[in-house]
Structures are given as structure tokens and as C-alpha cells.
């Protein structure tokens, strides 16, 4: 099966373009844009970890190592498409236009983190594994019914493929020819469980065969290959040819979340090795250098820009007004039920030190 699903690669680990025909796509402009985005989300991610360590946000799920998968796939989207991320895909949501401040707010336990910028179709992060897949199918189906050319992309991990919702989502999408791209980031682990304990197969792409759906494996650390395959899948979706399953083979360097200690279950030297050999950012840097497009000063500028943008978002997040407990009660329904109205009133009375028992029943 592995042979039937070879890993597609455009740029090798040394930054060399694999096929002549790719050269048309691998332009200086696009390469620089990718580089910028990769640096941008990596900068954000490292800040996320450090904010958590300093107690300035809550538990955080880092994606370092997976940047090419997230940037490449998100850049392939059109502005009105739909994105259904998991908790580890804020690299993708940022790239698609989510607000950095809101992403930080999410990790700081704020509902505002679930709200995308106006006009951007980004679902809140999927927390219960794989449950977002059926949502994406439904949203995509609705686009099809509207007669639009919009598509949906949904992100999930290798572990997610074991859930029933993975299967039900792919099956329904294939039956309804829903314009949706199932974008899997196979980072080798579901918390501590390695792929070989998660499934019997060596690839995830082959699971598409169960739905007569195209399945493709791509080097998830090669932003160009990811971009190209996602574009292709989105094109298929838009033109009514139905869904595609993409397996982006990648690796998370660090912990599952900041609450996790990866050394309990794996040798972190593997991450170090991959960081040197197969890093998604380094690969683009090497490409830039090989092509003679690299400019140290520009690169510094990119990094400074990114740091600046992230710092500004952190500042915004930290100066954000404190939570308003009204929000506990006011968004459960369009109109709060009497239970919520009353509980809210009692909550605020108790808060003010007015004994609840003073109230009339």
C-alpha cells in the first residue's frame, strides 16, 4: 500500500526543486510569501509556549514542525471557503486570516477565541477528536446547494482517524459529493500513542479507498507540495468532483500540549534529528538560497515583522477587558430561559454579597 501512495514532494530536504515543471509555480514571490508565513506562525507558536510557561495563558497546543502543512493548505483556500480546524491548527487559521489576538484569547480561556474575523468562515477549534469532520461535510453541502464554488477544508490528526466520526464524515462526503477537503496531519503521534498502535496501516491516505475517494500522501514539511495538492483537491471540490483525503506526513517536535511530557513516551532525539534534516522552514530557506533569492536582511526583517505582529497581539490579548460573567448566561440561547435569567440574577446578587435568600421566590 505504501507504494500505491508515494509521498509527493516538490522541494527536497536540501531545498532543491524536484521536477522542472514545478519551476513555474516555485516563483520567488510565492517562495517568499511562504517563508514569511512560516516564520510568522512559528514565531507565534514559540510565543505561545513561552506565554504558557510564564502563566500568561493556559494549556497550549504547539504545532512546531507542522508549519508547512498548515501554511501550504491554508494558502490554497479562497477567501469565502470554510475552515474547520482542530486545536492544533491555529497556524492554518492565522494563515487563513484569523486574528492572532483571538487565537491567544482562545488559549487564555476566552470565548472570543472562537470568533473569527467578520466574513471569515472559521469554525471554533475542534476539541472532541474528529467531531468537526461531519460539520465540514454539512457546511460544504450547504455551499453546493447554494450553487456556490466555495469549498470546505477540515483538519485532523492521525489519531483522529480511529474515531467513528472520521469514517462517517468521509462516507457522507463521498455519497453527497460534498466539496470538502479532508486534510490530515499525520504527525506520528496521538499524545503518546504512535501511529503503529493507532492503526494497522502504514498510510492514512489509503483509507480513502474505503470511499472510492482520491487519497494522496504529501510531504507535510514541504509547503509547495502541500499547497499544490490542496489546490488540486479544492479544484476538484469546486468543480463538483467531490471530496479528497490528503495525508500530510509531518512531525510535531515538541510536546502534545504544554501539559504533556513527551520524554515519557518517545526519544526526543528523533525530533532533533528531524529539525535538522527535514524542517519545513529550513527547507524554504535552503530553497531561497539555492535559487539565489535569499537576502539576510530581508529574512531578518521578516522575523522582526513576525515578532512585532505577535507581540502586538500579545499586548492586545493582555489588555483585553476581563471576562464578563454575563456571558455565561447570555449566549446559551437567543433568548435566555427563565432558569438562566434567574441563575444570572442570583449569581450577581451573591457576587455583590446580597444573600440569595433575600430574594423573592
Amino acid at each position, binding site marked *: 500500500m505504501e507504494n500505491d501512495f508515494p509521498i509527493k514532494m516538490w522541494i527536497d530536504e536540501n531545498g532543491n526543486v524536484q521536477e522542472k515543471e514545478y519551476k513555474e509555480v516555485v516563483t520567488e514571490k510565492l517562495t517568499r510569501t511562504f517563508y514569511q508565513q512560516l516564520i510568522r506562525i512559528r514565531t507565534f507558536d514559540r510565543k505561545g509556549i513561552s506565554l504558557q510557561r510564564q502563566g500568561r495563558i493556559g494549556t497550549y497546543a504547539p504545532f512546531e514542525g507542522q508549519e508547512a502543512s498548515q501554511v501550504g493548505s491554508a494558502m490554497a483556500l479562497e477567501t469565502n471557503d470554510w475552515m474547520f480546524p482542530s486545536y492544533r491548527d491555529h497556524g492554518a487559521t492565522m494563515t487563513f486570516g484569523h486574528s492572532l489576538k483571538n487565537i491567544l484569547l482562545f488559549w487564555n480561556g476566552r470565548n472570543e477565541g472562537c470568533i473569527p474575523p467578520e466574513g471569515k468562515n472559521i469554525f471554533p477549534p475542534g476539541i472532541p477528536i474528529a467531531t468537526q469532520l461531519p*460539520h465540514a461535510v454539512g*457546511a460544504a453541502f450547504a455551499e453546493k446547494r447554494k450553487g456556490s464554488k466555495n469549498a470546505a477544508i477540515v483538519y485532523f490528526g492521525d489519531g483522529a482517524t480511529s474515531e467513528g466520526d472520521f469514517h462517517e464524515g468521509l462516507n457522507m462526503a463521498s455519497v453527497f459529493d460534498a466539496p470538502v477537503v479532508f486534510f490530515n496531519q499525520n504527525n506520528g503521534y496521538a499524545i503518546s500513542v504512535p501511529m503503529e498502535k493507532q492503526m494497522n496501516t502504514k498510510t492514512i491516505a489509503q483509507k480513502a479507498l474505503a470511499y472510492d475517494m482520491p487519497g494522496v500522501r504529501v510531504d507535510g514539511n514541504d509547503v509547495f507540495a502541500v499547497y499544490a495538492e490542496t489546490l488540486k483537491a479544492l479544484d476538484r471540490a469546486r468543480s463538483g468532483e467531490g471530496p479528497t483525503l490528503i495525508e500530510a506526513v509531518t512531525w510535531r517536535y515538541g510536546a502534545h500540549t504544554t501539559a504533556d511530557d513527551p520524554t515519557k513516551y518517545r526519544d526526543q532525539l528523533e525530533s532533533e534529528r528531524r529539525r535538522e534534516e527535514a524542517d519545513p522552514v529550513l527547507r524554504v530557506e535552503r530553497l531561497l538560497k539555492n535559487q539565489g533569492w535569499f537576502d539576510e536582511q530581508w529574512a531578518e526583517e521578516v522575523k522582526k515583522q513576525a515578532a512585532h505582529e505577535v507581540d502586538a497581539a500579545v499586548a492586545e490579548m493582555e489588555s483585553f477587558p476581563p471576562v464578563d460573567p454575563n456571558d455565561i448566561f447570555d*449566549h446559551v440561547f437567543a433568548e435566555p430561559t427563565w432558569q438562566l435569567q434567574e441563575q444570572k440574577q442570583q449569581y450577581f446578587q451573591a457576587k455583590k454579597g446580597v444573600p440569595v435568600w433575600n430574594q423573592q421566590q
Partner: protein
Amino acid sequence: MESTAVKKKTMTLVQAITDGMRTMLEEDDRVLVLGEDVGKNGGVFRATDHLQEEFGEDRVMDTPLSEAGFIGAAIGMAVNGLRPVAEIQFLGFIYPAYEQIMTHASRLRSRTMGHYTVPIVIRAPYGAGVRAPEIHSDSTEAIFTHMPGLKVVCPASPSDAKGLLIAAIEDPDPVLYLEPMRCYRSSREEVAEGKYTVEIGKAKKVQEGEDVTVITWGAMVPVAAQAVKEMEATGVSCELIDLRTLYPIDRDTIAESVQKTGRTVIVHEAHGTGGVGNDVLAIVNDTSFLYQKAPVERVTGFDSPVPFFSFEDEYLPTPARVKYAIEKVIKF
């Protein structure tokens, strides 16, 4: 809001449900019916009979046998502008979709502070008493009323069925719409043509009375009504309340009635422990403690799985059991 439409037609409860869907499919292009066998077959209870013929496969869609999948997809559709009305074949088969309802349908509005909403209706035939095979007869409404963000309704009469269904479809939030199978064809009633709604959250006083308040819903309404009738013959005047909405329960109607009668009997077919009856009891406790002349009596299904059909009637509350409870609160 009762309708001003005057034309009426005699219908069974299940026909009134079909009529409600038809009305909304005509009225609102965003409405779409989906589920297992709802197309050509018209649903295993014929609730969607002929709708696919009339509105096309795009509006009335058979789905794969995949409750989590199609409820999940309905959530995605609702978020993206449609108004899905999903049919679960029997309430006992909703559990695979429990997570989608619990975590997503009911929470998306609050997670996103109102940015995304999930105006879906999930219809499910429910309850025992129709000799269905095992596991087809659950009445587990309580596991849904405990889900913040979800409304739960349950009509007992044809005209309520239609009005509540239309209200549910128009509601901006997810509604679980329970259909007491035992009432599907057990009686007929005049139902107004066209669009009208029965307000979600409002109970119905089926009968006024002075001595005891009997509170119930769904297929237990006729059972309680029978008991009430028999009690009246012995000189006990009962007020009979059909809750119609199980979340949010109509507290005012309950309080008003219990404060008048001082005695409460609750009847439901679900298991006693954890049943919605306890929410009613809590309302009595909270609003009417000093008016109570007797402890609240609950007549419920047992803390056992709903038994196989050969003895499901033993499980279900009977008029006799309801009468004993009424006598008990009277003689306390």
C-alpha cells in the same frame, strides 16, 4: 400564538407532523428534511410520506445509516444557512449522535458568543406501548433536558404537534422534538391549515380542577386523562397539565396550579431516577413549598430498561397507578 387561519382538517398526530414539515418546506427554502428512509419510503412511520416526491431529493434527503454523521452534517448545514429537520428513526438510536448534540448542536452558540448558531430540529419517535422490538421504546428525554443550549418539546395532540414543530423549525436554537409513537394514530383532531405556532415553553391546561394537579406529557397525557376522569367520578377534581415543553418547563403554570390545589402528581414513562419528573418536583419545591398539602407523588417507569414488548405494558404507568397516586395525595 394561535393562528388566525380558519380552515381546518382532521388529522392524526403523525399527519399533523407531516403537515408541519410540508408547510415549512413550502414556506422557507432553507428548510430541508434529512434522515434514514425519509425519502421514497416516507420514513418508517410515514411521517415524511410524499415529501420527497413533492419537494425533490434536494430538500428531502435520505442519508446513510450514520446518526453521528448526519446530525453532525446537519449542524454544519445549519451554521451555513440551512434549516435542517433531521429524523432519528427511534429515540433509542439517537445515542450514536449524542456527542454531536451534546457538544456541538447545543454549545456552538455559547462557545462563539452567538457568532455561530445551530437552528436545527431533531425529530424522534419515542416511548413504549406499540409492541416495537426491544430498544425501540426508550423515553430518555432527561438526558437531553440536562444539556444546556437544547430545547426539548413533546406534543400530545395533533394540533400541538403541528404548531410546536413549526415553532421548533423557526426557533433560532436547536430543538429536540419528541414524537410519542403511541399517539401517532391513536386519535384525530381538527388541525388548522397553513402556518401557525404553539409557543415553546408553554404548558397546556388540559382540564381545570381544584383538588390535585396532575402533570404529564406525551403518551402519558391520555393515561393521566383517563385516571383523572375516573377520579372525577369519585368527586375528586383534578387539574391536568400537559407540559408540552420539557426544557424550558413552564414554571408559572405549574406554580399557579399547585398553589391552588396543594397536591401534585407527576406522571411520566421514563425511569423514575433522574427523570424529568424531578425537575417538576424541584419547581414545586422552589415555588410552592408552603402550599403543599402532601408530598409530590411521581408515577413513572421503573429503574429498569424498558422491557421487551411482551411486558412493556407492565412497565408503563397505567390509569390505575395514577389513580392510586391521586388518592394518596388526597388522603395524605
